[in-house]
């Protein structure tokens, strides 16, 4: 009887200690930023190469299949492409002039002041294993110049920002995550709002007043407010607007411009001072001068 009571007492004490530890851990937890412990860094560095290997295998298999399909269609396309090349060559001469003009105007307007001149190309090797968080893991980390809060983009638009980074891997809190809030502006009307992740790979545009003239199909760009994202990066498009009978703001659904279903490679924008000092890193230089 005494033995049973002692066993119960030990259980209660253990439960209480672990529960208190957990509550303390929750109180210290920040869903917007994380500094990984040494243990987390070591285990991540050991385990993530396996994830990278699996992601690479998938890419190789996809590429193999795509190549096969391409070969089948190559001979037909070859004839069409030859005709296109001759037409494009003449277009190219005109385009070069347009490009030079565009660059001159950009410099004039200081359009690209907020965007980092150097970017690290990284591949997606995994997703967060919990349902409620939409986070991706990249195969580049602090050794490659990446810092927490670095913005992450693709040619389609905004992906998110670096939430935590280890020497060779980093986790990105995507715009699909409910903890990530992006200050945006509607391209057509210059209306400001906040984009938050919701469900089904969609987002919501919040804090837009009922009298704002936004429409379905309007495109959203980053506003450049908040110090994380540069100004003018594509975020998404409005797909649904609902005016509830109550409240001062609209209920707006947004589809991200990035196709997260097919996301494989991303660009991490380095901070300007970091980009200047990182020489040995594999970077994609941005053309700035004609």
């Amino acid at each position, binding site marked *: 009887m005494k033995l049973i009571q002692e066993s119960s007492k030990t259980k209660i004490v253990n439960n209480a200690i672990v529960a208190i*530890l957990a*509550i303390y851990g929750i109180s210290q937890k920040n869903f917007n930023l994380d500094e990984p412990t040494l243990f987390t860094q070591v285990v991540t560095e050991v385990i993530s190469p396996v994830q990278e290997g*699996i992601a690479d295998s998938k890419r190789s298999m996809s590429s193999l299949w795509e190549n096969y399909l391409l070969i089948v269609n190559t001979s037909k396309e070859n004839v069409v492409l030859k005709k296109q090349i001759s037409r494009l060559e003449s277009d190219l001469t005109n385009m070069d002039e347009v490009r030079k003009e565009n660059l001159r105007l950009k410099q004039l307007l200081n359009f690209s002041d907020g965007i980092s001149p150097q970017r690290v190309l990284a591949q997606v090797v995994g997703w*967060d294993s919990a349902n*409620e968080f939409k*986070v991706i893991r990249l195969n580049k980390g602090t050794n490659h110049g990446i810092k927490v809060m670095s913005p992450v983009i693709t040619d389609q638009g905004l992906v998110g920002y670096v939430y935590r980074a280890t020497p060779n891997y980093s986790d990105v809190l995507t715009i699909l995550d409910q903890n990530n809030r992006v200050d945006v502006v509607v391209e057509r009307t210059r209306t400001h709002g906040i984009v938050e992740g919701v469900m089904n790979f969609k987002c919501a545009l919040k804090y837009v007043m009922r009298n704002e003239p936004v429409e379905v199909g309007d495109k959203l760009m980053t506003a450049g407010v908040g110090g994380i994202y540069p100004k003018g990066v594509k975020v998404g498009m409005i797909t649904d607007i609902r005016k509830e009978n109550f409240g001062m703001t609209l209920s707006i659904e947004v589809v991200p411009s990035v196709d997260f279903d097919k996301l494989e490679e991303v660009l991490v924008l380095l901070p300007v001072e970091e980009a200047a000092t990182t020489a040995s890193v594999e970077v994609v230089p941005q053309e700035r001068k004609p």
Partner: protein
Amino acid sequence: MKLRFSQVIFSFAITLLLLIGFEILTATVFPALGWKEYRLTFNVLIILFLAIRLDSPGVPWMILGLQVIHSIFSVEGWALGTLAGVIVMISANYLKELLHLTTAFMTMLIVQFFQVIWFVTVSVVICLKVSDFSKFGMIVWSFIPGSILLSLISPVLFWLLANIWRVPSDSGSRGVEI
């Protein structure tokens, strides 16, 4: 039945390796195959097994260990799941006379019941943490498809874990005392 300490360490190490395998499956293999929207949270299933089938003062520490490994793969961190795991374990202790995992259907039913407790706990804590209860429904809803799938595969995983922990199949809910 009482396990020796060395057996406990061995079984726990195998369980950790199993969890790492499942986490890689969920975080990399499934998304690579195009399944990105819903996750199968295997850590929940493994912790449910420990909470329901083991009778030991060391279980909360094992839950903590499993959640620390889970936090490598998720920004959720270790603390949320640890708190939920301890709450589930205490609930299982109170209900132990009613829990009989004798058939696959009963296992699925019990696992689903405890997953609901788990997910409600996690959702409430997240909403408290971000001071926004408007997301409660959305978070709970995101759990549902994955949790049903987990319940369906729970008899197989429980059978596997029962072999790892040497829990006799006819021992009712409280399988092994450590």
